Each structure stands twice: as structure tokens, then as C-alpha cells.
């Protein structure tokens, strides 16, 4: 088992390095000068040429790119993400403050997607080709096609303005996470429901299901113990990648629902060409992607015994 785990880690290392390189150069390539922006932040003062250069030297932005990259990497390994160029806030503190918000949002969206996705998928597979199946299929397609921000505006208009049930924004405990996570997960519920339906149906036609029913096992027993576990294998990979994806993708939702998460933080950073924040963010999401990959492999390893036998994936 450990052997397999190490093999995966080694294979994911170059990916992580690739992500750091991509993150580093993503920032540098974009036009606009963050130093000038940060000095004219209050919209009133006008920095002179000398002041701008002095600050740029101070931040080490005038060094050749590869040296900047090396400095950045060994700073990052020590856990110091440096300060934001725009308002020289300590990036690590800012991220630690914002990370739990995005994690809570991402995790609640993830839970909703898994529960709803698998639930609907299973129902569709069980009631295959009935009216319910067709209705649910259309519902999934519809859920995938509604833009997130439209859904957000409509939900706010209904639940906050008319019925005063849910807070429109802010961080007042669980209530303020209901609408955002619902909107964030809606698109993926549609996709994951369709995926699990395909997989469940695929498994139903397999030989071992015939054998199990020939043994006199009940439909529900076969469903839970036999089909579910087999169908889960490809679905885990989908959910794993989805979880890594949410972190980057919730910027719009976070700005609408005024949740101080990573998404809106990085969008502002990109507006202000705040290289250090962009690099830190992409590095973070890259690391989480790599970690979630490992997590998927571990879960995969546990659920799919074929792996234990050392078969190559």
C-alpha cells in the first residue's frame, strides 16, 4: 500500500512543479504595473517615477524572472507567501482568514452535490425509461443550463426580499451558506446525476447482477451492496476533480453573496495585477488539486480491491 502511495506522490510532484511555474508566469505576463496601481490606490496622490521604481526595487520585481522565481519558491516552501503589493497585507494571514469561508462554501456545495447527484442518479436508474426518469433527466439538463448569477439574483429576490427567510449576504452562521452553496452546486448536481445514472445502468446489465438476483437477493439489497459500490469507482474521480475545481470557480458567487472567500480575493488581485497573491492562490489551488488527486487515489485504493493486488491502474 505505501509503495503504491509513494508511486503516486512521485508522479504528482512534476505536476505540482508545473503548476508553480505556470502560476508564477501567469502573473508576470499580464500588462499593467501593480506598483503604480498600489501607489495611486486612494485615487488622489500621484507618485513620481522615482517613487515607483524605488518601490519596485524594494519588492524585487526588477530582478530577472528566473531569479524572482527561485526566491519565490524557497520563500514559499518556508510558508511565507510575502505581502500583497496593493495594500501590503500579509498574504498568509489574509488567506488563512478567507480559506475557511471558501472551504465551508466548497464543502457544503460538495456535500449537496454528492447527496443530490447520487440520489437523483440512483432514482433515475431505478425508474429507468419511466416518466419520472424522463422528467428528472430534463430537470438535470435544465439545472446545468441556468447561469449561476441569474440563479443567485432570483433566489435573493425570492428568499431574502419577499420572504425574509434567508440573509442576503454576510457570514451569519449556517443560514448565510444555504443559498450560495445551492447555487454553486446546482450545475454539478445535473452533471453528476447524469454520470451516476449512466454508471448505475451500466452496472445493472452486468453478469454479477444476474447471478445475485438468481441467488434470490432482493432488488434493494443488490442495489446497495453490489451496484452502488461498483458504480462509485468512476464517480469518485469526478467528485475529486470537482472539489478541486470549486475553489477557483466560486468568485462570482462569493462576490454576489458578499462572502469574503478566496474567489473574490483573487479576482481583485488579478484586477490589480497583484502578482504575489495570484501566485500564492494558484499555488494553493494547485496543491489542493494534487492533494485531492492523492485523496481520490487513496479512496480508490480502499474501494477497489483490484488495486491492492498491485495491478497497474
Amino acid at each position, binding site marked *: 500500500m505505501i509503495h503504491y502511495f509513494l508511486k503516486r506522490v512521485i508522479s504528482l510532484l512534476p505536476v505540482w512543479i508545473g503548476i508553480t511555474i505556470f502560476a508564477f508566469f501567469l502573473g508576470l505576463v499580464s500588462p499593467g504595473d501593480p506598483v503604480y496601481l498600489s501607489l495611486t490606490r486612494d485615487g488622489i496622490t500621484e507618485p513620481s517615477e522615482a517613487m515607483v521604481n524605488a518601490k519596485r526595487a524594494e519588492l524585487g520585481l526588477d530582478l530577472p524572472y528566473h531569479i524572482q522565481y527561485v526566491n519565490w519558491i524557497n520563500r514559499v516552501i518556508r510558508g511565507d507567501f510575502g505581502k500583497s503589493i496593493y495594500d501590503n497585507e500579509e498574504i498568509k494571514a489574509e488567506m488563512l482568514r478567507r480559506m475557511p469561508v471558501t472551504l465551508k462554501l466548497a464543502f457544503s456545495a460538495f456535500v449537496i452535490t454528492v447527496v443530490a447527484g447520487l440520489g437523483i442518479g440512483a432514482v433515475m436508474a431505478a425508474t429507468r425509461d419511466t416518466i419520472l426518469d424522463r422528467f428528472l433527466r430534463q430537470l438535470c439538463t435544465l439545472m446545468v443550463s441556468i447561469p449561476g448569477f441569474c440563479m443567485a439574483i432570483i433566489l435573493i429576490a425570492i428568499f431574502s426580499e419577499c420572504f425574509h427567510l434567508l440573509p442576503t449576504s454576510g457570514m451569519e452562521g449556517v443560514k448565510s451558506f444555504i443559498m450560495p452553496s445551492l447555487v454553486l452546486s446546482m450545475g454539478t448536481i445535473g452533471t453528476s446525476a447524469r454520470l451516476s445514472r449512466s454508471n448505475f445502468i451500466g452496472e445493472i446489465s452486468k453478469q454479477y447482477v444476474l447471478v445475485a438476483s438468481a441467488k*434470490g437477493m*432482493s432488488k434493494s439489497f443488490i442495489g446497495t451492496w453490489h451496484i452502488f459500490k461498483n458504480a462509485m469507482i468512476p464517480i469518485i474521480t469526478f467528485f475529486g476533480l470537482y472539489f478541486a475545481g470549486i475553489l477557483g470557480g466560486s468568485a462570482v458567487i462569493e462576490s454576489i453573496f458578499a462572502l469574503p472567500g478566496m474567489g473574490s480575493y483573487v479576482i481583485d488581485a488579478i484586477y490589480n495585477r497583484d502578482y504575489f497573491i495570484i501566485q500564492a492562490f494558484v499555488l494553493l489551488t494547485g496543491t489542493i488539486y494534487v492533494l485531492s488527486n492523492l485523496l481520490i487515489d487513496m479512496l480508490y485504493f480502499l474501494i477497489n480491491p483490484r488495486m491492492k493486488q498491485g495491478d497497474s491502474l
Partner: protein
Amino acid sequence: MHYDIQMADVTIEFALKSKRVSAVDQVNVTFKAGKITGVIGETGSGKSVLGMSILQLLPKQACISGTCFFGHKDLYALDAESMRKIRGQEIGLIVQNPNEALNPVRTIGRQLMEPLIKHFDVSRTEARKTVEAHLRCFGFEMPKKVMQQYTFQMSGGMNQRLIAIMGLICHPSWLIADEPTKGLDAILRRSIYDVFWEIRQHYTQSMIVITHDLFFAKKLCEQIVVMYQGEIVEIGEAKKVLTTPLHPYTKGLLMATPKAGMTPIPDHLNPSHESRCKFYSRCQFASAKCKVQFVELREIDPDTMVRCILYD
């Protein structure tokens, strides 16, 4: 007290998207308890469909008419719950390709214990003991170790024996085997024969073996039913049917075996148009009468029947 399986006027059709395909056409047959009956026929003869319909294991699109009495119960009329009780407990099934018959992500032990716990709701430890006994009986030296493992860790032969045990674990009075020798090489074919011999000694005499392998059937079975395009063309005592066949199709089949020089059955000997006998277009002994006269299964002597006007 073993019951016979009596099937009367059984017709099975599949309602596919565009058209209805008929697989079994007006079959009347009785499988006697305590006897191994071989159902022989080529691909598309409906033998598997007939066998599977007994346990109602056909896909949803199949529509079955006629009756299939198992003792006093008509299996076709049973509701899902009572049918479930019969499966595994009274009629066991051994499926076709052994390597895909077991759930790859669940240990063999658990899959074998499931029916015991479900049907007789015995405790887990007791179920485990019975399974171990069966495993030992089928030649597995270390039953405990095997129960931890998974089907992909087993060889073809071992998997065969496992699915046999799976079918027999609840000591059903009847056993249906669907194409046990399909695509197997010589060694495995022989080991499957030993497995059936084992079953015959310790478990049950009443078996239906569906196969296209004539010699395997000849060696194993006592009674043989030959099917062609959904109809039964000949029934008889195994040795007799496969050495001195009556129906032209059975004769053709035997001539086509490698031992008999592999002479093929001609495809379009006589111009075929609506004729009563389905084998008319490929039959050497075809005559004008065959086209006109309605042919049904006639009894020549107590346990041989044939569907051909030659024997009127």
C-alpha cells in the same frame, strides 16, 4: 419431494424498439425431477431464453405467454416476492462466463454467505462454516483464505467451481446451467464436467443443462431436447438421440462435428417460402408434404418425440 418442471404452450417474444422478435414458439416440455436434461441448439435457437424464463430472469422487454408449473405453482404467474424466495432456494442457476459472474469489489466469502443469511437467516458464523464446508467439498484446500480474496484473483477453473457453489449453497432441488462450456478450452471443459459429476453425487439429480456442446451433453445428460429456431424438434434418451438421431436437423448437427468430418448443413437447399416445417429450406429429406402438412411433436415411444412428417 422433488417436483417436475412442466412447460405448456410457452411463447416468448421481445418487444424491441421497432419490431417484435420471437425467441420461443409454442414449446411444450416436461423436465422430469431426478434426471439431468440437456437442452441443445445453436445460437438463436431460444434455449437460453427458455431456461432463463423459468426463473423470470429475462430482461423487461420480454413478454411470456403460456404456463410453467413447478409442482403446483405456475412460475410465470408468481409475484416478485415469492419468485425471489424460489430463486436460489428451490431452483439454482449456474451462469455462463465464470470470470465475470462474481462482483469484483466484494469478497468471495461474503457473496457466498449472502443467500444463506437471506433465505435461512442463519447467523454469520454459521453461514461461514457452511460455506467453508462447501469450498472444501469442491477442492479448495484453504477455504478461509479464498473467502478473503476476490474473483479476479482466481483462475478460470476456480471461478467455475465458485459459481457452482453459489448456485447450490441453499441446496435447491433443481439446478439450471446456462452454457457452462462456452468458449472454454479442453482442460476447463473437463474440470466443469467433474464439477457437474460432483453436484450429481452430493447435491441434486434434477438439472437442466443448456449447451451447444453435443459431446458434453451426451456424456453428462440422461435426456436430450434439441431446439431449432424457437421450436423443439426432437426429445429423447441422450445416448440414442446423439448416436441414432431421428430429426434431419439433429443428423445434420452431428455430421457437422469435427469427428464426423465437419460436413456443413446446406443453407438454401430448397427455395424456402411459407412452409410449416422451419427446417424445410435446409432439409435433405424435404418433400412436397412438408410444405403443406402441419407438423407437431409426435411421441414415437415413451421418452422419444420428434417433429417431422417422416415419422407420421
